[in-house]
């Protein structure tokens, strides 16, 4: 038995399914191969999707997609063992800019969209490698089976084992990725509304640096879903040797921090997950994003914008899937072959889209974010400074003298340097 497909997509995540939906809706015969039991069952992220790309590609999402809460409040905290400083931003004018969601649910929804458009999605089948003949990718291999297609899209996610085995990407280096650990805790809708001071469909996105990762580069996060919160942290693996407790204990210490613990009182753990996340953007991309018979989208391509506080993966994944599909459709309609030179159209179209425009702008973000002082000295300093400043005891305490007293090892030169790094790269 052998059915030949116009396009085969490895991985039913946001990138692969968007490509599938678009290709199938133009009448191409599309196969999506997914290793999980269904689309979404192997996906993990922090908790928030930026909606701008959905407005264009899936305008019906507002009614149909499994949106949990629209983000109304943005919080950034610097946490130490005994203090915390939080900046909270809130506006009445936010309308449907970003929302929290379960990525498993959301991906399953994208899967239904792709199937409705005519794509064939086969789950429970990990792809082992690409079938390469005479320097061209002609299909995929799963166990003893080979399936052939005119073009293959690798949307296999961050670990990109298939590309690696096919010699199209080097093994991931620790500094390219972070490990995310996440707990989903059920609290109930009303409790979340009360504790986070939001209305029914409004949510909070919260980034927490400092003690939450034991001052190791990375960060913690909390997002509010309807009935549960997601709480977790990311450790940059390039700094993995600095962790002094295992990451599963670290996330627990964060949860048990007095400031956090009171928010999750009477909560119930629904899920514990872990996943890698790209933190170097384009610097961790495979050497080529396309070649004879294949192209690469989503996390596998390093398409995640990691700006420290703002982390955007799903919108980049979806847009790259859209661009890949549009490039293929154009080549298909012109009756062309999918070789490296025709697929350079994908590269050109990516440059035109926000994917490359934004990722190039943030190309050096990791240089600023890799600075250990950001997660350690500054988190401690800001809390020590405010503690001292607010600690009124009758001795004169002006801002500059308090600053000098609490800045610890930080020098003014360090601060100026780091500030420059942050401002120029982020």
């Amino acid at each position, binding site marked *: 038995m052998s059915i030949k497909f116009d396009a085969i997509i490895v991985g039913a995540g946001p990138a692969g399914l968007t490509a599938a939906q678009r290709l199938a809706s133009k009448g191409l015969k599309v*196969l999506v191969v997914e290793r999980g039991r269904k689309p979404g069952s192997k996906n993990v992220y922090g908790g928030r999707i930026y909606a701008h790309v959905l407005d264009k590609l899936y305008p019906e999402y507002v009614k149909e997609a499994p949106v949990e809460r629209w983000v109304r409040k943005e919080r950034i905290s610097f946490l130490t063992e005994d203090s915390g400083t939080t900046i909270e931003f809130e506006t009445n004018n936010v309308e449907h800019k970003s929302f929290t969601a379960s990525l498993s649910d959301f991906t399953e929804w994208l899967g239904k969209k792709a199937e409705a458009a005519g794509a064939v999605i086969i789950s429970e*089948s990990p792809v082992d490698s690409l079938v390469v003949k005479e320097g061209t990718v002609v299909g995929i291999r799963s166990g003893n089976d080979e399936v052939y297609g005119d073009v293959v899209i690798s949307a296999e996610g961050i670990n990109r084992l298939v590309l690696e085995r096919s010699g199209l990407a080097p093994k991931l280096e620790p500094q390219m990725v972070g490990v995310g650990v996440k707990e989903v805790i059920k609290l109930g809708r009303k409790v979340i509304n009360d504790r986070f001071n939001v209305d029914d469909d409004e949510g909070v996105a919260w980034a927490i640096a400092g003690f939450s990762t034991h001052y190791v580069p990375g960060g913690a996060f909390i997002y509010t879903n309807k009935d549960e919160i997601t709480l977790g942290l990311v450790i940059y693996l390039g700094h993995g040797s600095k962790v002094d407790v295992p990451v599963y204990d670290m996330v627990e210490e964060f949860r048990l921090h007095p400031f956090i613990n009171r928010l999750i009182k009477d909560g119930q753990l629904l899920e514990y997950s872990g996943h890698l996340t790209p933190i170097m953007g384009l610097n961790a991309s495979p050497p080529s994003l396309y070649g004879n018979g294949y192209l690469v989208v989503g996390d596998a391509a390093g398409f995640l914008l990691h700006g420290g506080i703002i982390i955007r993966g799903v919108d980049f994944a979806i847009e790259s899937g859209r661009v890949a599909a549009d490039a293929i459709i154009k080549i298909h309609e012109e009756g062309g072959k999918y070789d490296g030179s025709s697929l350079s159209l994908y590269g050109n179209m990516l440059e035109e889209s926000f994917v490359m425009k934004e990722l190039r702008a943030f190309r050096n973000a990791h240089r600023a974010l890799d600075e250990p002082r950001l997660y350690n000295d500054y988190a401690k300093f800001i809390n020590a400074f405010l503690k001292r400043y607010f600690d009124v005891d009758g001795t004169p305490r002006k801002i500059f003298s308090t600053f000098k007293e609490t800045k610890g090892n930080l020098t003014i030169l360090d601060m100026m340097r780091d500030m420059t790094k942050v401002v120029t790269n982020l």
Partner: protein
Amino acid sequence: MDELTIVVPVKAAVPNITAVRLDPNTHNLVREGVPLMINPYDRNAVELALRIKDRFGGKVITISMAPPNGKDFLESTIGMGVDEGILITDRVFAGADTLATSHAIAKSIAKLYPNFSLIIMGEETTDSTTAHMPAQVASWLEIPFVYYATDAEPNIKDGTVKITRYLEDEGLLEEFIYNMPIIMSVYRNSNPPRDISLNRKIMAKVNGLVKVLTNKELGLNPDCVGLKGSPTIVAKIEDAKPLPRKKQIFQGDPKEGAKWLLENLVKEGVIR
């Protein structure tokens, strides 16, 4: 008998029992967010059926009574090598206990495959662990039933089958020869399931190898299926509180450790 027809009933089960919780107020199972999957022990039954088919030929059919998404599990069995799947799904089947379920499965098999040779089932389900089904299906069809089967060798010429079964507690292997048709349930630690083939799954989906039937096609007695046909009453459910662990740690010489462990287990009454 010209050709073997092997039917394997499978269940869409809750994946692991710890994922399910009891609602403290209603005492009902909290199933929200819990994906359904094929009952793991049913895969061993499918595997045995396929091994029989590999050696003796014939046709293997999986059948399930499930919500419409049960199609996925049946496609997976086709991915393993099963020839066709039957999903029976209808609102009148909802709320069934094991009796009503076994009625629907047995009568559907009798209607769709009147010449079946073997029915092979999993030892039990992981989510309700009653092990009622095989015996009840046997009873509805008035055929013999062998449990803990590990292998079966049918003889198509004389219509008999030699069944091997393993009795775990006794450590015994037994062999029986019966006339077909017969039903057997498969010892859960035998016949580890094979991989799912991508090409076969594609074929199952593209060629529509899973047939979906409602009671319109099946015409089962509505009084014998679903909630109506279910005499079981769940009077009370209690959440068994897990015993706290003692968390004693022995450090030192492994031989001393083994002695220490033995003494403590005897002291606690775990072993005598």
